[in-house]
């Protein structure tokens, strides 16, 4: 490891309502691969966005190559030699590889772009990195892995001195990851500083020199990779105090019947051989890191996405679910994580939203029976304690928590016995969260069965009777609430086959 190339000190950043970064420190040396770890929402991406000028910092200092800097745009940072290889690929699919690498700084011959030189330069770059890609190929014809390599080549071609990899391996195959590591080692030997963001513990151990852990927007500590264990890192990641008491034992009687059984569900790369059972009156937590395949599993189960194989039984009966309509008919309700896009119609009233999935039952001839509709809506407003001046209120005017209650009402109205909550409290403030929790417990006590996807560890531990953990499309753990701790869950969530 060489001298320090980057020091970020006391970086502070607030967004409306969120203190995203609270005096975070971070340092990178030349010729070092420095891992940046933390749970979803710990602030890793925000920190890197501040470094590369996408966000501005509220306070703190960034010293790069001995000088205090403050970049105002990604271009600024790029010119100084700081580049970021984004998690989402930023490629222009309709252009060729070479055109993508040199976009924004094309070599010119008069008014004409010198395509031949671009291809030559790209080739030289690929040779240096040991990548085998034809620069004349259209970007859209490459595999995701190869596109990632192009993205890296593009980043490095800016005379980079500090390269940030934001979860580069998420979409790569085993061999592609090996190639990626080869490239990273190569860059390291050229004395570049490298920041490596990843959730994969095994990779961290293989490729990095130091690990900095962030937790809830704060700096948790820095470890030397070879001197620490996986457990040390996990402890540091989850080491916050838990405000809400976790559930200590399952509320489900041991003889509760199985209402839903899923066997070897497969759907693309994100859902591989997932099997589980859901009991009557149970809250089954689905935990895992971002991109673990939980939402995809539920969407495949619900018929929203096509599944390649897998069997589903509902109340012991084999069920064919090909479309969401099938699922709803069988009594499954899905509360999407993106409420506004899939859950409710914002510009309609509470009453209209409540009966949206059940409208045929509220018809009198070709007309909607307002009286019945209003009665049903009022019933759920009362029983769910939805705070609203009236059932004629437009949903857009309600708070997040109350909007969520309207979605719940919609599915209850449909007589759904199995409810899938995908991130039920996302975007809902703390007070309303408790109400939603309360409501879920109440529904379970009444015999409804609930699947709850949540990325919040505290929520999983507080609500679930049983926890299923997924990692990269596979089920990697099934933990009874009695045995569940943040550590055991995180172990399973970062497991790699």
């Amino acid at each position, binding site marked *: 490891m060489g001298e320090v190339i980057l020091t970020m000190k006391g970086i502070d950043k607030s967004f409306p309502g969120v203190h995203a970064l609270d005096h975070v420190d971070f340092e990178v040396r030349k010729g070092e691969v420095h891992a940046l770890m933390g749970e979803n929402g710990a602030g890793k991406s925000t920190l890197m966005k501040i470094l590369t000028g996408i966000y501005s910092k509220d306070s703190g200092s960034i010293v790069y190559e001995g000088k205090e800097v403050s970049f105002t745009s990604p271009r600024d940072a790029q010119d100084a030699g700081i580049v970021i290889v984004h998690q989402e690929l930023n490629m222009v*699919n*309709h*252009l060729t590889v070479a*055109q993508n690498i040199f*976009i*924004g700084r094309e070599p010119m011959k008069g*008014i*004409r*772009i010198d395509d031949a030189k671009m291809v030559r330069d790209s080739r030289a770059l690929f040779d240096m990195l040991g990548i085998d890609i034809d620069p004349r190929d259209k970007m859209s*014809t490459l595999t995701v892995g190869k596109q990632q390599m192009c993205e890296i080549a593009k980043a490095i071609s800016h005379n980079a001195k500090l390269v940030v990899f934001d979860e580069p391996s998420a979409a790569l195959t085993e061999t592609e990851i090996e190639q990626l590591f080869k490239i990273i080692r190569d860059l390291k030997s050229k004395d570049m500083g490298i920041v490596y963001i990843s959730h994969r513990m095994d990779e961290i151990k293989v490729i990095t020199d130091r690990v900095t852990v962030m937790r809830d927007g704060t700096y948790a500590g820095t470890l030397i990779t070879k001197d620490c264990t996986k457990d040390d890192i996990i402890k540091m990641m989850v080491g916050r105090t838990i405000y809400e008491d976790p559930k200590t034992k399952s509320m489900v009687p041991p003889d509760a019947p199985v209402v839903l059984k899923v066997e070897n569900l497969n759907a693309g790369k994100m859902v591989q051989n997932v099997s589980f059972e859901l009991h009557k009156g149970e809250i089954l937590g689905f935990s895992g890191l971002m991109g673990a395949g939980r939402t995809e599993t539920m969407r495949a189960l619900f018929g929203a996405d096509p599944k390649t194989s897998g069997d589903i039984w509902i109340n012991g009966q084999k069920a064919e679910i090909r479309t969401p309509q099938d699922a709803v008919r069988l009594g499954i309700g899905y509360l999407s994580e993106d409420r506004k896009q899939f859950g409710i119609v914002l510009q309609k009233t509470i009453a209209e939203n409540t009966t949206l999935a059940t409208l045929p039952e509220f018809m009198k001839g070709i007309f909607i029976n307002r009286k019945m509709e209003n009665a049903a809506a009022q019933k759920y407003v009362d029983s769910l304690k939805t705070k609203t001046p009236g059932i004629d209120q437009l949903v857009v005017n309600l708070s997040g928590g109350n909007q969520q209650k309207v979605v719940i009402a919609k599915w209850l109205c449909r007589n759904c016995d199995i409810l899938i909550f995908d991130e039920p409290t996302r975007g809902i403030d703390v007070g309303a969260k408790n109400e939603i929790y309360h409501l879920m417990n109440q529904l379970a006590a009444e015999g409804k069965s609930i699947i709850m996807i949540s990325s919040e560890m505290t929520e999983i531990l507080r609500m679930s009777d049983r926890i299923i953990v997924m990692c990269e499309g596979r089920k990697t753990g099934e933990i009874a609430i009695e045995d569940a701790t943040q550590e055991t869950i995180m172990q399973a969530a970062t497991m790699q086959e």
Partner: protein
Amino acid sequence: MNKKKSGSPLVNAIGTQKLVILAVLIVLFAAFSILSASFRSYSTIITILSYSYYITFMAIGATFALITGGVDLSLGTGMICYGMIGGYLVIEQGMPVGVGMLVTVLVAVLFGLFNGTLIAVFDIPPFIATLATMMITRGIGSVVVGGMSVTWPQAASAQGWFRSLFRTQINGVMIPTGFLWVLLSVIIMTFILNKTKLGRYIIAIGSNKEATRLSGVKVVKYHIAAYAITGFFTGLAALAYAATFQELSPGTGGGLELDAIGSAIIGGTSTAGGVGSIAGTLIGVFIMSMLKTGLPFVGLQANWQQIITGIILLGAVGIDVMKNKR
């Protein structure tokens, strides 16, 4: 789109869809020529060409809007509006025809910049922004000239030379001079689209605007420029229209933009952005014009043109959809 370098290099260079529509064009021409002796005459070809100029220019403009992932609905009414304003200055205000032409194109470019600014700066969806411009231009032309029709100087008059820019007679033989401008436009715009920064960034914006922005490209500037080009060609279309037809009437022109957009799509331009070819657009225009002119020769009324064009449009897009599915 996972075609590797297989098959003939010519096919790969031109693209399957363009070859297919080129074949359609040739088949149509052959069929009409065989079925009708009067179709295969020089004067018919001149007619087809004459009626294709203004659509071609509009369609080149439409191609640029489509490549950015947008659309321009103000092409048709805009064309009439700009032509009326220019013609009004010549006929009523006594300005030289050259000035009238210049103003026509200038106003067209200004409206293009207006569209581009609404879309790129204010993030108004292209459909809505240009729908508004369509309504505005439909009214503004007649407001400026006072609600009457405008006729540019006749060929025989002193200022009529501008009509010979598109069609002239030498020793009694019709010369389709307009085709020269069309050809020149196609060559220049193909070069700009494929070989210059302007073209490349317009394609990149249509393909992935955010990635282009993150690459340090001034996307707003190039996005506006694309619509300015669209405006410029609408201006040229106005001149071609004024030279070909007797008069420009207030409130007309609506619907012509759909022919232009249809031609571009038949020619292989994608409505999703990032893909487009000027030569393809030209072929698309010719298919439309040939149908319009040719069908009456074989005893089918011109309305069949609409039906058949619709089918060809579906077919052309169908090829593309199938290819992408594979």
